[in-house]
């Protein structure tokens, strides 16, 4: 069972979440809506919480090749903890992102998620450098894998946002040298 949860500080009356699960092709093709369970936990105060398990909030469930995206909507107005899990044994990586209101993921979660993607890039950097399909190109890392690449960074970024939503993807050029830019104003100092 794969499980991921997110705590959202909510400001509007509704939230939408996209849950993306990357799986091997043969698993993705067999996934259905019934395999999903969603737990909404509302916490008007942190000491009192109510849980509800439902999959009735699923408003769309689409197949994006290896990535399945389910979108849920709620009208809960308090702080919300969302746990989503799928009863599949072979799930690889499981991530939850907010769409439309992405900053409702708190800053720490967002940074953690971004740093995880960055760490995945650093781990596979040598292999990417040795791969002529990626060398000297920009790659986009999401859920620990290369999801797309391009010689043009902005084209790549637009494509990734179109496909996966406005999520903390890590985009980097696969090259040996380290990129250093100079900002020579004294107003910018290293921390």
């Amino acid at each position, binding site marked *: 069972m794969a499980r991921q949860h997110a705590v959202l500080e909510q400001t509007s009356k509704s939230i939408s979440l996209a849950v993306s699960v990357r799986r091997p092709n043969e698993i993705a093709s067999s996934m259905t809506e019934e395999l999903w369970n969603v737990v909404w936990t509302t916490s008007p105060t942190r000491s009192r919480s109510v849980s509800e398990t439902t999959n009735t909030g699923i408003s769309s469930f689409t197949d994006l090749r290896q990535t399945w995206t389910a979108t849920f909507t709620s009208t809960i107005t308090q702080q919300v903890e969302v746990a989503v899990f799928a009863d599949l044994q072979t799930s690889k990586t499981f991530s939850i992102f907010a769409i439309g209101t*992405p*900053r409702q993921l708190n*800053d720490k979660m*967002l*940074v953690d998620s*971004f740093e995880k993607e*960055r760490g995945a890039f650093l781990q596979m950097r040598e292999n990417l450098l040795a791969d002529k399909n990626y060398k000297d190109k920009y790659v986009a890392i999401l859920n620990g894998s290369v999801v797309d690449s391009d010689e043009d960074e*902005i084209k790549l*970024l*637009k494509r990734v*946002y179109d496909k996966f939503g*406005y*999520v*903390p*993807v*890590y*985009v*980097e050029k696969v090259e040996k040298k*380290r*990129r*250093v*830019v*100079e*900002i*020579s*104003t*004294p*107003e*910018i*100092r*290293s*921390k």
Partner: protein
Amino acid sequence: MMPYALIEDPPIPMMQGEIFNPVLNISEKEQAKLDTGSALTVIPEELVSRLKLMPKGTTWVKDFRGNEQEHRTYVVHIMLDGEKFEWVEIISRERPNVLVGRNVLNNTKLILDGKNLVFKMEDP
């Protein structure tokens, strides 16, 4: 021609700018200093939260002391003097205004008339 800002001594070319989240299309207005000494554009750290920007990468930044530090990078649209520069890579730091670097300025014709303390940005 626009006047140099007199808030610093010597005065500095500074103008009203607007920074946009390129996906969510929310924006914040902020004063923007033009700085050809900066390779990248820098925005105040608090704007990252207010504009709900997603980090998209990292870069090493060498400061005026020669120190190097890795920074997260973001992408924004920037409006300066009515012209919009799209998908501009930026970093953020604790600072009161935007520092417009060469990754934006090199797409403009910038005339600095320091003798008369006026400047003009054109043909962007």
